[in-house]
């Protein structure tokens, strides 16, 4: 049985059926495929949230530093406001220590200044600063998923 109609001009009913069913199959398959890929993307992560409350502004008097170990962040408070600096070294992820001139990573010797900028060592970038915002119930919220420009301080 030869299929010669594919050579005719225009679309016959016969050809339409063939084309339509082919396209229907392709479209439905692509839709399903898209759904399958979407399904593989996890909608929830089983981790602690990257946005967390740190308490009221009164708990951070001017001129103090608080190291939140479990959240891996330093909270600084000075005359210009509050800022949250990540304590995770940008080299390979160790937790840095705060020293009077800045931060020192104990693993491979990276050094950062008080603003978190890299001074020396193998770290490729500055310690990120995280967005601080104010929750409507008055407490401060740090969002470790949102980085802001180094130097942006949160005015209370």
């Amino acid at each position, binding site marked *: 049985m030869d299929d*010669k109609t594919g050579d005719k001009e225009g679309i016959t009913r016969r050809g339409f059926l063939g084309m339509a069913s082919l396209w229907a199959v392709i479209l439905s398959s692509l839709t399903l495929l898209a759904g399958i890929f979407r*399904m*593989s993307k996890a909608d929830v992560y089983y981790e602690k949230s990257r946005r967390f409350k740190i308490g009221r502004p009164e708990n951070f008097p001017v001129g103090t530093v608080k190291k939140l170990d479990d959240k891996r962040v330093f909270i600084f408070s000075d005359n210009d406001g509050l800022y949250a600096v990540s304590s995770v070294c940008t080299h390979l992820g160790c937790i840095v220590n705060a020293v009077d001139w800045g931060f020192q990573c104990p693993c491979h010797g990276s050094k950062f200044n008080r603003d978190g900028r890299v001074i020396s060592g193998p770290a490729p970038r500055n310690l990120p600063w995280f967005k601080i915002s104010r929750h409507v119930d008055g407490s401060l919220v740090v969002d470790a998923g949102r980085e802001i420009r180094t130097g942006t301080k949160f005015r209370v």
Partner: protein
Amino acid sequence: MNRSGMDKFKENLKNIRASFAASLLRTKRPISGRSRAAVMLNNFFLHIQGVRTNINTLRPSYTFGLGLVSLFLLFFTTISGILLMIYYSPSTGEAYNTVKDITYVVFAGSLMRNVHKWAGEGMIIFVMLHMARVFYTGSYSRPREFNWLVGIMLLILTFVLNLSGYMLPWDQLSYWALVIVSNIIQSSKELTDALGITPYFDIGGMAKEFFLGGTVPGKATLIRVYFLHIMLLPILLFIFLGVHFWRIRKDGGLSRPAGSAEKSVFSWPDLLRAETAVFMLCLAGVLVYSFYVDAPLREMANPLIPENPAKAPWYFLGLQEMVSYSAFMGGIVAPGLAILGLALIPYLDREDGHAGIWFSGRQGKITALQSMFAGAAVLAGLLAFVIRFGWFRNWWPDVPQILIIMVNPAGIWVAFVALWSLRVIKKTGSTRMGAIALFTMFLVGYVMLTYVGTELRGPNWEFYWLKSQWPMH
């Protein structure tokens, strides 16, 4: 012509679609007979099918596409299963919660779970329908006997795959079905107990503990069942499936009535068209059903609170009904004989010339109908009797168990089926008719017993006409 490099480049860019298609299919668009043959031969996925297909194979009312439906249901089950694996965890502390999260949080998670469940259980139905089609069209006769055996293997694997999957959510349904199944595995203990040899040779207990990885269902069991379900059984299934298809080709394609032997068409595009149609139909059915009907999930497994009645999944309830008469007879002998009987059919019925015609003609239809009614009547009678009057232990409390093992409704039914089939062989002088009788009664038995186990058995395995009559705790 002297074309510049850029012209060549531009022309190749324009022809990418055509040249890619040609490299993939290794042929041009198949229009002539030669190219149609080539596309089948030269393609990895397509070459398992013959270049030409007998027109009988394409006839919907011949096969109803049942084998294809089974195959495609398998594909859907496999793909949905693989996707579910991304989120499921086979640890007794976690399994239930991951299944819950699949239904609540994962995009299309509950749809995927439904697809997996309904395609999987649909396989049981359609594999059995496919087996019935193959049988009633006499397609097990020479040279297809071995493929019939492979098919039986596939049937068993389908059942076990469904069963192992049923266990994985680790909810009340799973846990107590597992308890029931592990006790069915222990069935031979009834015989060794009755013979008094259990202390020396406890094959039933050993089998149960081997399966459970312990004495009660627990962490080890779940991991084992998971391993069976995602790895060992699918590997075996696909190996047997490969053999199944290869044999189809080697046996000369699907069976057909004698005389129509050589009317055939090119597989491309007719067979492909038919397969695509069945594929999409199957997909549509599964998708629609899964869209509306949710796979069940009960409370978390609780070893202290038994389900009453504790039931195996529906496809094993016929077996569980028989086990309620005698564990050994109902759990091992009757199913074993059933499978043996099915397997021997192509070897005990060597009549040629029956293939390709449903029921092998008028006499076969009559035999089938007679066997169906006779079987249904006898089985219904046996069931009514045992439900109303009980059995030996109800009348003679001290009767030795060995007597119950040897004489009980399951055994009587199996004996009746065998004797009736032999009688049909004698009366009709045809082993084919006997086979029809045997197979029909097997189907009747499976369907009726499954119905009784599903709908008519309530708490404590007591008989109830309706679920609404079950006594509430």
